[in-house]
């Protein structure tokens, strides 16, 4: 089951407070997305930890339903 951009965005926003999420459907096939996530919750965390937070927000979909999500994360003042 593929996920829609809206599904991805709402799952991330639900789990990460104050996140600004920009999703792009890279091939228009509902299977290859990129996501830019900017949130104050990322402050003081390294990139691995930031990405882990997004993966946790997606509750195991990443690597399963969601094959390809190119991820970029930052805290607001690092963007």
């Amino acid at each position, binding site marked *: 089951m593929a996920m829609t951009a809206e599904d991805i965005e709402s799952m991330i926003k639900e789990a990460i407070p104050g996140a600004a999420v920009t999703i792009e459907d890279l091939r228009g096939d509902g299977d290859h997305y990129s996501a830019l996530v900017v949130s104050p919750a990322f402050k003081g965390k390294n*990139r*691995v930890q930031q990405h882990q937070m997004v993966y946790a927000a997606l509750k195991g979909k*990443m690597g399963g339903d969601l094959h390809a999500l*190119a991820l970029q994360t930052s805290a607001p003042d690092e963007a």
Partner: protein
Amino acid sequence: MMNDSPAAARIQQEIDDNAVVLFMKGSPMFPQCGFSAAVVGALTNMQVKFKGIDVLTDPSLRDGIKQFSNWPTIPQLYIKGEFIGGCDIVREMYESGELQKLFESKGVEFAA
């Protein structure tokens, strides 16, 4: 996060024994996934000596590496025992010059 499975022990051994380890799909010569190929490409461009481990040949390793690092996707790059990230992070660090700095600070040889 860490566990005592044979896969975890094998992973720990590999990242202890090799300065740069890439858990990937396929081999460095024949990557079987675009994301793995991208990381191999970056390391090859930098002429970094690394050990590629094909998780497709061992299902326990394929699942084990995800648990080991709490990271849901492959490839995964380790430098001197430390998990650096997957394809997106490696690409970002390569393009920004951070990866070069990291190799330098870890004493890993590469071509600038």
